[in-house]
């Protein structure tokens, strides 16, 4: 199977835009399409993709949390960042842990520190990294302030 070009592959989801450095691209997609994008990438490249990171960024002014999925595609040495936006007050997104099991710990971390719920991830727990007394808190949200001790 000849590797199709990445922009052709993802045309139906959005426009592929390059970063400054070579072989790095990003694409804005809708959060409901996330699972189908990743499934498509996995099928197109024979499973030779791996999830590098999940980066949630809290944009408090816009009221959204941007969840970036950095995915490395090994056969064409390309890093693609899938950018999705979810509302801040209802931070729920579909889990991809059944497609890429490597997402397990990254989703756990994002759930613990940013308070994002991943639908369908059975491993989520709170606190994961945080100490017990901060179990209910989400320190990486911009409006969070530590209690004075």
């Amino acid at each position, binding site marked *: 199977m000849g590797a199709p070009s990445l922009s052709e592959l993802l045309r139906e989801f959005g426009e592929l835009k390059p970063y400054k450095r070579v072989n790095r691209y990003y694409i804005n997609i809708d959060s409901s399409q996330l699972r189908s994008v990743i499934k498509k990438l996995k099928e197109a490249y024979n499973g030779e993709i791996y999830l590098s990171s999940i980066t949630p960024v809290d944009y408090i002014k816009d009221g959204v949390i941007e969840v970036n999925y950095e995915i490395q595609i090994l056969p064409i040495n390309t890093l693609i960042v899938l950018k999705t936006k979810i509302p801040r007050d209802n931070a729920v997104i579909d889990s991809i842990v059944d497609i890429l099991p490597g997402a397990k710990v990254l989703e756990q971390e994002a759930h613990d520190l940013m308070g994002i719920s991943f639908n369908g991830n059975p491993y989520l727990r709170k606190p994961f990294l*945080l*100490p*017990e*007394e*901060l179990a209910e808190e989400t*320190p990486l949200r911009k409006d969070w302030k*530590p209690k004075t001790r």
Partner: protein
Amino acid sequence: MTFVGIISVIRWGVKRSPWILHFNTGACNGCDIEVLAAITPFYDPERYGVKLSPSPRHADIIVVTGLVTRKAAERLKRIYEQIPEPKVVVAIGACAISGGVFQGSYAHHGGVDRVIPVDVYIPGCPPRPDAILKGLLEAVEVLEEKAKIVERTATPTTYRTSVAATNGG
């Protein structure tokens, strides 16, 4: 042998062969690998009788690396209580002394002296293995002073209860 005799033997033993317990309360590993490097042939602390002890109950000196994270603080307190008297606490590195670069974070208490009393401070980020060795020798002196106090004040009853307390913890 009399009771005082036994205690003197303990003091003599403590001076000649201090066993250290290493506990990482949230360090970056920099100090840990330097502690590890300090027990290797290059610096060979065993010529001073310094040896890593696996259990708090056998240790005389507790070497703490890293700032005290909230989760680790209770562990540290428990380990401190389990060490029999006399005991000395050594704080290694900027983080263990004050929090270092991580000052102001929500997840930790800061330096070790916020949680347990510290006897010897070894500054540096991280301190060199020879500086750690120097600090340990300093800790042995403190340990000897403390052993003298224990020797002077201990009676068979207090000694037995303190041993029972450490064993039960």
